[in-house]
């Protein structure tokens, strides 16, 4: 049997003609590209030429899972979205979990590839004996949760027997940072992937859990490896907090290092009146009646549903925010009441935008109002720091593109550029238009450099996971201009590999040897950590090559003025990243094996990565 760990087929959907067909996921391609980000990158490179922009019908929207999905390794329902995204107009690599990957594979597919543009709004309905584009007019205007509820009713299915991944009103109205949300609370948020879905007039993908099986090459060994990963997650000091509380611990940890983005980077000081205990991980959880709502096969105490326990939204069921929610729907916009933040966070998931980008945008508008750069008349109302109802009103304006919402719907960068001047100087964005994560990256240099250089609409490497696996120091000082870029560049590849597995980035936070054992057991390959890294680097290189081909080069690899500014208070007051920026980039390029001048992966690297054709495309035949 050659189909271990794979369903073996890719579902192709041509929205223009309404045709759907299956295409073999060739065994030879599997090991080279794995799935998820890798498979998506390959499709993007091969099928989306430079003149096909994000909003062109021939753009591809790849919803892919990977070999671990549907298997008993924790957190393996993974979805990776790859497309030419609306924010950067370059490659996108963004993830959500839930049950997408598991349910899709039980239907017999490893990925869905959309092409074309539907004349009318549709949703894609998948079950293991049929695929159909169905009329979505009933679903229009519904938020993502309403969409799932409505489809549950239509299809008479409940629980995890139905996975729905959809766009909300934001995606329908082509808000540039629209996201794709699924299974109540799992969001693939980056680079306007929901905008692309909206442009293609696909409201949702509804997958009925199929009846097919996924085989593992060595099932017993797979259980054993899964147990070892779980054990590592539960006991390793670097993941134990995640295991117990998901990302809730982030608020206080990051605040301690000056990385909590308070009020649009205007301060790094915790407001005195805010009780710290409430914002500890356990405090955040104890504040709610909450219940586990785990992804496929996952044992983390991470994803939860909770009931708002006080205030105007008391009694409503919401998704427990990730750290990113606490910051984007909270700290960044000056909101510090967890009950309110948690509500706003779910509003964002339901309207379906990237919570980070919304935070930067809303925080920016708030600051601009305070400073008079955006008047009440401009906006239509007064939006003060921490005003959750106002933030929600702003969200509605953006989703409907009403009044100033129309401009804001273009995202922070374009809106700020439009306003220009002092207003622009307050805005947090990157020149490439990757939305920064919800941190104050002025104290986390690894993330700032990664966010500015990332080719997938966000960071490529992300926080260092078990760097010692690859001979790198366990940790480096977050503002060390030499070590940080070495770390980021040196670990480059690991994340892209993880993003190709159909698993969650949190549950793959295990030593690479252990993770590889699970992949070996699933696929039957003798993959080791070096091959994993090599594969990840291949994926990163290809996405970068794609972006270069789209005209996105090193000239846009820098932070906006505010994003790269120097903190005025708090733990790292006065420490400037921009003073070190060029040097850091030099080192990063060197470590990554990319050409500093052109931004291209060097030909010898491309050859080493078995990307002969890419080397030729970037450098010409004779290099």
């Amino acid at each position, binding site marked *: 049997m050659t189909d271990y760990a794979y369903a073996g087929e890719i579902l192709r959907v041509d929205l223009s003609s309404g045709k759907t067909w299956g295409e073999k996921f060739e065994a030879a391609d599997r090991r080279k590209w794995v799935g998820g980000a890798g498979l998506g990158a390959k499709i993007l490179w091969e099928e989306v030429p430079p003149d096909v922009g994000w909003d062109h019908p021939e753009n591809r929207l790849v919803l892919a899972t990977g070999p671990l999905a549907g298997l008993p390794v924790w957190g393996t329902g993974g979805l990776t979205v790859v497309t030419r995204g609306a924010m950067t107009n370059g490659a996108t690599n963004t993830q959500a979990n839930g049950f997408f990957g598991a349910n899709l594979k039980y239907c017999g597919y490893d990925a869905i590839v959309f092409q074309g543009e539907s004349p009318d709004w549709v949703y894609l309905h998948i079950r293991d004996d049929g695929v159909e584009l169905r009329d979505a007019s009933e679903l229009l205007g519904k938020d993502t949760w309403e969409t799932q509820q409505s489809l549950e009713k239509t299809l*008479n299915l*409940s629980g995890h027997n139905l996975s729905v991944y959809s766009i909300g009103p934001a995606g329908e109205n082509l808000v540039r940072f629209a996201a794709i949300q699924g299974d109540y609370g799992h969001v693939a948020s980056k680079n306007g992937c929901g905008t692309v879905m909206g442009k293609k007039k696909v409201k949702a993908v509804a997958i009925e*859990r199929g*009846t097919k099986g996924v085989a593992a090459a060595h099932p017993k060994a797979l259980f054993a490896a899964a147990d070892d990963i779980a054990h590592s997650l539960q006991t390793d000091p670097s993941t134990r907090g995640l295991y117990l509380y998901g990302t809730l611990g982030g608020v206080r940890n990051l605040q301690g290092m000056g990385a909590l983005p308070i009020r649009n980077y205007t301060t790094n000081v915790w407001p005195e009146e805010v009780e710290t205990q409430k914002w500890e991980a356990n405090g955040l959880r104890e504040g709610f009646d909450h219940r586990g709502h785990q992804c496929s096969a996952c044992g983390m105490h991470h994803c939860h549903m909770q009931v708002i326990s006080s205030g105007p939204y008391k009694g409503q069921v919401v998704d427990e925010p990730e750290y990113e929610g606490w910051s984007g729907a909270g700290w960044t916009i000056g909101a510090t009441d967890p009950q309110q933040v948690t509500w706003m966070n779910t509003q964002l998931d339901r309207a379906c935008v990237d919570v980070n980008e919304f935070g930067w945008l809303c925080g920016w508008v708030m600051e601009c109002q305070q400073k008079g750069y955006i008047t009440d008349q401009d906006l239509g109302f007064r939006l003060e720091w921490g005003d959750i109802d106002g933030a929600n009103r702003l969200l509605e304006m953006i989703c409907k593109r009403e009044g100033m919402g129309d401009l804001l719907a273009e995202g922070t960068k374009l809106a700020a550029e439009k306003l220009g001047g002092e207003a622009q100087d307050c805005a947090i964005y990157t020149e490439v238009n990757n939305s920064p994560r919800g941190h104050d990256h002025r104290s986390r240099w690894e993330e700032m450099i990664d966010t500015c250089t990332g080719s997938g609409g966000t960071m490529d490497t992300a926080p260092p996971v078990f760097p010692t696996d690859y001979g790198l120091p366990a940790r480096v000082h977050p503002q060390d201009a030499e070590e940080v870029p070495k770390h980021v560049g040196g670990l480059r590849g690991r994340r892209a590999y993880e993003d190709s597995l159909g698993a969650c980035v949190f549950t793959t936070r295990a030593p690479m040897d252990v993770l590889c054992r699970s992949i070996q057991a699933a696929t039957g390959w003798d993959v080791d950590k070096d091959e994993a890294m090599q594969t990840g680097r291949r994926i990163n290189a290809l996405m970068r090559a794609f972006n270069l081909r789209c005209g996105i080069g090193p000239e846009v690899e820098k932070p906006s003025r505010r994003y790269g500014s120097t903190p005025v208070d708090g733990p790292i007051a006065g420490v400037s990243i921009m003073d070190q920026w060029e040097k850091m980039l030099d080192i990063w390029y060197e470590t990554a094996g990319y050409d500093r001048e052109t931004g291209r992966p060097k030909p010898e690297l491309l050859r080493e990565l078995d990307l002969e054709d890419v080397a030729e495309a970037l450098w010409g035949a004779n290099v």
Partner: protein
Amino acid sequence: MARHVIVGGGTAGWNAITTLRELDQGDSEIILVADETPYSRMVLPYYLARDIAESHVYIASPPKLAALSVDARLGARAEKIDASAGKLILEGGDEVEYDNLLIATGSSAVKAPVPGADGENVHSFWTFPQARAVASGVGEGARVAMIGAGFIAFTILNALVSQGVKLTVVELESRILPRMIDDTGAGIVQDWLNDRGVEVRTSAQLASIEDKGDAKLLKFKEGPDLEVDLVIMATGIKPNIDWVAGSGLETNQGILVDEYCRTNVENIYAAGDIAEGPDAVTGEKVVHAIEPTAMQHGRVAAANMAGQEVAYKGSLLMNIVDVLDMEIASFGAWDDADAEVFEAVRAERPAYRKLLFHGGRLTGAIILGKTREIWTTNDVGMLKGLVYTGVDISEWKEHLRENPFDVKRAFLASGAAGGLLPETILGRPSISAHEIAVSS
């Protein structure tokens, strides 16, 4: 030692034997009077499909009967009962005295009364010999007419198709499965069959069967003739009741029994297709010519014959049949005009659900859908559980009205399982027949 005499070694008779031995381990005399070696008729379709060998059909062989110390008079037929003398009289004149007598003579197939019905290559499908006759006549390409589109006809339909026959189903009524599902369900099944190359002729009244060379020519009151190689008559059954006439037993369609499976005559019990006993839902007396009823009757009768007081809650009408990978099941009073009905069709699957309520109680149900899909749910058994227990699910009614497919959560939340768990038919945990042995 008490002497139990059992007439008929089908499902009811055999279950009575094992139950007696489970309870007394040999402490009684059992005489089985049966013209066939014990087997369950409902296994015959799998024999026809050539899934199983002849030996697999029999549940008990003579050595096994002997091992259970059963005095088996195989091939013998009971002719009449002398209740006042406590005697059973066999064909040929032998007499058997009894302390307790169990009548479990089942039913027989009835052919449509048309000229030619008794001709060659026209068979019922009810007994092992009949099954053999059909089996030897079907094969790749054979043209077969199935007269009657009732439940029994459908139990052998898969087997026939698997043998590669060209099948035509002929039904007198305007639709198929008239006594198992309603019009809506029947329509879906009929389309399903047509799509799969099985021809169905409804409202077709057979007039005669004539020979045409080696073939059979079926003539109808209306419509074109049909030429086939073999005819199967699945046109109904009747209880084997004639022989008890004059015994003083009260009969209606079957022999009337109470909740202990006792007849009106002392020490005489009846079980299975022959018995007309209480219905679990209505409490009224009915003949349920189905396997589970025969099995339960046999067990309950035996327990009472063994001196235990075991009252039977009553039997539930239920059937399940798979037609070319479409599952069709119905429970209880699925055809009740007085019930409140919630139903829904999902044409694209296809799937159909019908729930019948009296107040907060589910009294009947139909479930129909693709085999590949139905077993991904718990619904078949849960519907049975809801109908059987009659548990109050008023709180779920509105939900089920909107979505009759979502029974699982209603079942779980109703506490039906909790009510059922202490329940056993014989007042004790069941054991496997393989564990039953006589001690000596």
